[in-house]
């Protein structure tokens, strides 16, 4: 198998320094929604200037380069052990080049490893073998500020009046957006998973964030709820950075998993406006990025 360390390093650099076009486009539309001279509009203008500058200078969009979360779908015959080694080598080099901040801290000693490695789960890598000859590696950098405002609800929830149906899911998600205020670096993108156990539910809520901004949900019921939630979240008036304004959420992405009869989880992963996700596709020895 081919050594992809150099290609993965470029994937990390792109993710950390070059915001995907669909996210930038969405932020540009949001600026026009905010009143001229308002703090919310000022925040979005600063954000866009920063996106431009980061791309030009190859410097991190946000200093919190987050948890590097890799999803790898590989053909039969690839060694996941070697792929993990290559991912780790790329992450170490990306840290040395200041594309990534050293972000991996031992939870017991408080010591920062200095190179973004640590234990079996940092960086976070998920492998899946797929049919065909194409390897796809997706990377998301998810910062701590937005990760901290993620929330999981177990329905029914009496305080919210939320039952075990989509109407209840709606209430849980709106509550999470309200609780987050501007602390997840709004305007945010919501990844919502319905069902699963606590672990798989959160996992799926992150995975669904890999969808493009304008990619509608294949399930018409969820597609409608995604639209409604984005619209209603924006009625809350929290605005960019929590300064007040019309743009609190840029997009909502939902997915669903089977659940136990006893459980009904709603997991909300909040992604900050610095929605750093990039994809690398390997085929016949050549690599493409998007």
């Amino acid at each position, binding site marked *: 198998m081919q050594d992809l360390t150099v290609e993965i390093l470029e994937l990390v650099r792109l993710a950390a320094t070059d915001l995907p076009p669909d996210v930038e486009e969405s932020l540009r539309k949001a600026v026009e929604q905010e009143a001229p001279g308002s703090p919310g509009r000022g925040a979005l203008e600063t954000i866009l200037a920063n996106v431009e500058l980061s791309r030009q200078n190859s410097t*991190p969009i946000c200093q919190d380069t987050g948890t590097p979360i890799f999803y790898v779908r590989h053909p039969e015959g690839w060694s996941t052990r070697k792929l993990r080694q290559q991912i780790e080598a790329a992450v170490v080099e990306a840290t040395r080049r200041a594309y990534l901040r050293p972000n991996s801290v031992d939870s017991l000693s408080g010591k*920062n490893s200095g190179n973004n490695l640590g234990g079996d789960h940092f960086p976070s890598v998920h492998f899946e073998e797929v049919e065909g000859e194409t390897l796809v590696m997706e990377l998301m950098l998810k910062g701590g500020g937005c990760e901290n405002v993620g929330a999981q609800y177990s329905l029914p929830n009496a305080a919210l009046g939320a039952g075990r149906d989509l109407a209840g899911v709606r209430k849980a998600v709106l509550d999470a957006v309200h609780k987050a205020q501007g602390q997840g670096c709004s305007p945010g993108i919501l990844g919502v998973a319905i069902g699963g156990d606590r672990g798989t539910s959160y996992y799926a809520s992150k995975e669904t964030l890999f969808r493009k901004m304008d990619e509608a949900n294949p399930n018409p019921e969820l597609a409608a709820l995604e639209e409604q939630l984005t619209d209603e979240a924006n009625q809350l008036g929290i605005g960019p950075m929590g300064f007040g304004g019309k743009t609190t959420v840029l997009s909502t992405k939902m997915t669903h998993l089977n659940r136990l009869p006893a459980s009904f989880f709603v997991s909300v992963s909040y992604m900050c406006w610095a929605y750093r996700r990039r994809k690398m596709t390997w085929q016949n020895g050549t690599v493409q990025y998007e």
Partner: protein
Amino acid sequence: MRKIQLPFSDDVILDLKVGDPIALSGVMVTGRDTVHKWMIDTFIKKTRPAQGDDLEVYQAILPLLRGSAIYHCGPVVAGLESQDYRFVAAGPTTSTREEPYQGDVMHHFKIQGVIGKGGMGPKTLAACQQVPGVYLHAIGGAASLIAQTVTRVLGVYKLDFGVPEAMWVIEVVDFPAVVTMDAHGGSLHAEIEQKSKAVLQELLAK
């Protein structure tokens, strides 16, 4: 945008109101989770004995913090190997985690500006009225842009806390922020929280 030179004066602080955009110049110090806990445990509540270079660092930061600003920031720093430090990305981190500590730290060190993102709660707001001080909101995620206002890294303390958690002494020119909590009890965060809560109740009732 109002230009302000660090250290602050009480007059300048008292003149600042929620919503004012400002540009800060002068020397400030970064400090976040580990630093705040270390300050409280070692020098304020004294539940942990000073050890290593603690006292030396304490003496060094006292004059730097007095009348100046603490910046909730864990930067990306280049030149770590050569010690020729340069800030590459330096936006604010979420401030609310320092809410249990910030008011006491402001009083102890006479800090008059707290810079971060997301706002803080009643304890810090009370300290802003007493010290007096302000909370300055920087734009979260605008890390490359803010790093350009850091003209020099003058030094670093407690690098053993890790790069993001160390205290970096930096000189800034026209560092952009918005006053979101002032010395008169005003808080944009409390206001937005209340207003959005009312809308949420309406939406939940539907």
